[in-house]
């Protein structure tokens, strides 16, 4: 009834002052922190330094990157693929996550096992499997030709289409799992309530389901987008030489051209973009955790 009982009821949701105070005594974790600084922060610092010091001090690496249409196109490809993969994983992942949450025990366990097993299977093996499926004489092209839907094989590999297909598959679990957790946390009676209130299925979806799962979608999308931006193996195997992604470019700059300066600049541009996206997400969705 009173304002005080309302504030206590919300207290568990917000981090309390005392838990923040407790976090200050971090002496016991110092070795771990040192390791994290050493392993994660130092290499980034080293790269930053090389990007502004090699071959001579200055910002010429960054100028070169942004002046080159080739590099900008690589950056564009990277965003295009990461964006497409993110959108497609949301569209495919949502129904799967929803099915996982509401399907009867056996079917949801089976589907869950498939999702998890595919995550645990070696990444290279899965990518090679897609090479087999997508090539000119692969199952997909042959089936489509046999069905008379196309006359010649579609170019599904060694281009951005192949990369997008392969990466969507790899990234799907990272969308399904957080989304599934969010959907599971919703009490299904709210949908019965919505129906009796007069909401059609579509209205219940747009006015109740989507708002309640927005945080899960955002968490999954951020994860997928950021991972896709820096992905290397799948683009390297399924992509073509003419349409590179940024990670491939960095590898080439380091391995073939030994241009550490430009590679460092490219890596830092990628890192900056990633952090910027993360901050935007934090601003709008908190930590992207499911509301409980």
């Amino acid at each position, binding site marked *: *009834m009173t304002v005080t*009982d*309302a*504030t206590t*009821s*919300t207290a568990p*949701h917000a981090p309390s002052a005392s838990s923040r105070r407790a976090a200050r005594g971090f002496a016991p974790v110092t070795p771990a922190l040192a390791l994290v600084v050493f392993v994660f922060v130092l290499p980034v610092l080293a790269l930053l330094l090389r990007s502004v010091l090699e071959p001579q001090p200055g910002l010429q690496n960054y100028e070169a990157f942004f002046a080159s249409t080739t590099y900008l196109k690589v950056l564009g490809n990277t965003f295009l693929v990461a964006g497409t993969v993110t959108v497609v994983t949301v569209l495919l992942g949502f129904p799967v996550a929803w099915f996982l949450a509401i399907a009867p025990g056996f079917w949801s366990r089976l589907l869950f096992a498939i999702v998890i097993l595919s995550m645990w299977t070696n990444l290279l093996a899965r990518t090679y499997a897609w090479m087999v499926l997508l090539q000119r004489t692969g199952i997909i092209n042959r089936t489509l030709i046999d069905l008379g839907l196309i006359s010649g094989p579609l170019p599904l590999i060694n281009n951005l289409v192949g990369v997008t297909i392969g990466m969507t598959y790899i990234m799907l679990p990272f969308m399904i799992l957080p989304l599934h957790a969010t959907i599971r946390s919703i*009490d299904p*009676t*709210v949908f*019965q*309530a*919505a*129906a*009796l*209130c*007069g*909401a*059609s299925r579509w*209205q219940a979806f747009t*006015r*109740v389901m989507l*708002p*309640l799962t927005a945080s899960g979608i955002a968490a999954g999308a951020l994860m997928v987008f950021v991972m896709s931006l820096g992905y290397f193996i799948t683009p390297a195997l399924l992509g073509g030489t003419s349409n590179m992604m940024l990670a491939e470019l960095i590898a080439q700059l380091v391995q073939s051209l030994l241009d550490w300066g430009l590679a460092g600049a490219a890596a830092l541009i990628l890192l900056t973009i990633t952090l910027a996206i993360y901050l935007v997400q934090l601003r709008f969705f908190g930590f992207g955790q499911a*509301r409980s």
Partner: protein
Amino acid sequence: MTFLDIRGVSKSFGNVAAVSDVSLEIARGEFMTFLGPSGSGKSTTLYMIAGFFEPTGGDIRLDGRSILAEPSNRRNIGMVFQRYTLFPHLSVAENVAFPLRVRRRSGAEVSRKVEEMLALVRLERFADRMPAQLSGGQQQRVALARALAYDPPLLLMDEPLSALDKKLREEIQAEIRRIHRETGVTILYVTHDQEEALSLSDRVALFNHGRIEQVGKGRDLYDAPHTRFVAGFVGHSNFLDCTIAARRDVRADIVFPDGSGCADIPLHAAASSGTAARLMIRPDRLQLAAPVPAAGPGIDTTLSDATFIGETFHFAVTTGWGAQVNVRLPAGAPMAHEPVIGERVRLSWNAADARLFAD
């Protein structure tokens, strides 16, 4: 005139019959309560009216038309659930506005109606709160406002107060009664709390094992139970083992296990002489007296326990064959002689207050 007509409705889950052949006619503006033990099919019946379950048999008619073909969202029925079902991402006002928004009512009408509904449940000051910032009782009042916002002719309530403590429950019960009076909405209310059922409703339908055992005013269920189950479920009662010695129409003479007997008890089942039966008497319809031979039905017993709890005396007496009988006497009533434990007392009652049920 019948407003909601439930005709021979059944529902099975696999081979479990949750509701079997339930028929009930409810008048417009009536407050009807479904009472019954857990698992007796109350919610299942309500959910069939709401459209969440499809009956495996029978028909449900609202205002003369079958509603079974309509999906839930077209039935225009209001419902308050046992669990808190406010939309967690919408404020109190937006929750109440939700049914109006999905009906695409104009902004002015929505805000007028939201104001009216929040006034009805006395939560005007909470319009901008989020559901998580409300107590359980407040959430259920908002749910009530949301269920009434679109003026449904029928309101279903499935144990809406069961998660609340007693004091709050009584407070909201009073509000529900007031809202029923003010809006004239027909209410179907589910509870397994008999006090709640008796205090709220015009009529009570008592469920047991997926069937309705008896429908009637609370008073009828208490005073004239048709079955042993009804007698046992509504109010307190004593059941005494006995045998039917002779039967005349709707009356019977009975013999207790110790050989003593009573004549002319109203009988409520087809039972022939010689069969076992149970005599039911409410604890507050019994009298205790000194063991002198008296006119009228009665048995000789021994007082085994006596407790004074303010407004009433609770006595427990033991019959000659070892059965225990509870007696409640108003503390204010004069007792010629207050018995002490171990003393022999004569237990007596008016013939009209006893009922006989076949086993």
